[in-house]
């Protein structure tokens, strides 16, 4: 079923990232996503970054559909299907969120008092929602060194004493998460990853989002460390948009 609502307000979070707020009165769990449709143009998956009512999505422009959705103004209609996917298992105790680029949109609902963050990106404007963490509880990393540590999420992770955390939640580009998985493998915390693949249908039929036989859209996108560690495709291979197998160059 295609749902629709009206955009209530928009705000620019960085030069190419915008937040859109819209009325939608259903329960959405942290980590779930929707498929947003721009009529006549296309449809893309998007994390629900703010879960109350109104709800919000945080859009980064990277293609024609996301660019068109970013242009939506208050009063215009927004079309979507969902919510889809499973959600983060939020445990009691001390939490660390590790977000790369727009992966922070999916982690945003987990930010709260006492929650630590590691926010990484290519450059300072890629670091979403880092200002929402308490001042002394956030570590930043950029490839170009424009803010925080110059280096990757893994470099930043090495500066953190992970043993102090009970649970860690990770979302970002696959190769970043692969590095983070290797590093976190040294610790005993409860770890969940929100994985990322092409999503075409959102309903478990097209196979475009699959990894090791799991469909991200219905069985994921959130998986535990134990499952991710045993995947043969994670961090190594994926199918491109036509279904052709591509190997990551590691």
């Amino acid at each position, binding site marked *: 079923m295609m749902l629709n609502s009206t955009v209530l307000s928009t705000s620019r979070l960085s030069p190419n990232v915008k937040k859109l707020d819209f009325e939608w009165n259903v329960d959405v769990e942290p980590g779930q996503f929707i498929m947003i449709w721009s009529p006549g143009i*296309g449809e893309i998956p998007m994390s629900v970054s703010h879960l109350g009512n109104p709800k919000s999505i945080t859009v980064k422009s990277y293609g024609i559909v996301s660019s068109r959705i970013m242009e939506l103004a208050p009063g215009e209609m927004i*079309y979507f299907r969902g919510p889809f996917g499973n959600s983060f298992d939020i445990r009691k105790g001390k939490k660390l969120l590790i977000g790369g680029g727009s992966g922070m949109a999916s982690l945003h609902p987990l930010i709260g008092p006492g929650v630590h963050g590691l926010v990484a990106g290519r450059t300072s404007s890629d670091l979403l929602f880092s200002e929402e963490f308490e001042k002394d509880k956030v570590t930043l990393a950029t490839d170009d060194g424009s803010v925080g540590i110059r280096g990757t999420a893994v470099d930043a992770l090495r500066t953190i004493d992970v043993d102090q955390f009970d649970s860690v939640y990770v979302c970002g580009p696959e190769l970043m998460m692969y590095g983070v998985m290797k590093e976190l493998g040294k610790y005993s915390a409860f770890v969940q990853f929100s994985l990322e693949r092409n999503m*075409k249908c959102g309903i*478990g039929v097209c*196979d475009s989002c699959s990894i090791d036989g799991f469909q991200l859209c219905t069985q994921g996108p959130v998986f535990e460390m134990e499952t991710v560690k045993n995947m043969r495709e994670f961090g190594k291979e994926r199918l491109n948009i036509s279904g052709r*197998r591509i190997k990551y160059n590691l």
Partner: protein
Amino acid sequence: MNSTPLRTEIGGITLENPLMLASGILDENGYTMARILREGAAAVVTKSIGLDERTGYMPPVVFPGDGYLLNAIGLTNPGIDSFGDEIRVAKEAGKPVIGSIFGKDAEEFLRVALKMESYGVAGIELNLSCPHVKGFGSEIGSDPALVEEIVGELKRKLKVPVFAKLSPNVTDIVAIAKAASASDGLVLINTVRGIAIDIFARKPVLTNGYGGLSGRAIKPIGVRLVHEVKKETGHAIIGVGGIYTASDVMEYIMAGADAVQLGTVLMDRGKSVFREIAAELGTLLEKLGEGSIRNLVGVAVS
């Protein structure tokens, strides 16, 4: 008492139960196909593969409605030369993998089929529902002469069994079934053409506009076509279209199907549906007082 009451056979391929995965649903990635086989499917059919890589249509490529699914994926595929890895991985599960292929004419079908066969598939399924280049707008599967040529050419050149998947979007399915009589089995049916319009956007939802209808809504159409073709030709048939329960499987079998394929049901019941329906079928057979599912093939066809 028969120890293998669900065992069946189609085109010389033995199946541990009559449940196969239909082409185009969760069968682009070898790891997914292997998992579905381990979940209890007796065989899988790959998504349809052509000569060249195709990205297909921009999403929305599916639209789930009440009791049905519409799709227009656009024959997305990596091209036959890049599909070997997926077959290899799928075959790790140790069960039959059938390669579905499409092409624009007999020559192209043959090129793709030979390559598919070289990957070690148990059989080839011909998707005859792609657009007919010459007969603009219609499907290859609506031209009996072309169907006969394609099936004949492949039967002469291939060692593995060849199944012809027919489209329901034709006026005379029996004529097409007869044209495909050289095949080792007919697969009935592919999706029924349809459309969904979003009344607020005032546009078709699928990027391609028209799509193929599948799911519960098409079951009576599928069962009718299987019944009609069985009655008129007696050919071996794989039934597909809207199967959601063991009793749906039984309807297809009684209409003349030797085996069936499940597609859209995976959207509602997940991959475990194969194991579940196989168990339900066992119970149902007992209730019907039959020792083997083979005894029921075509019993409703007079």
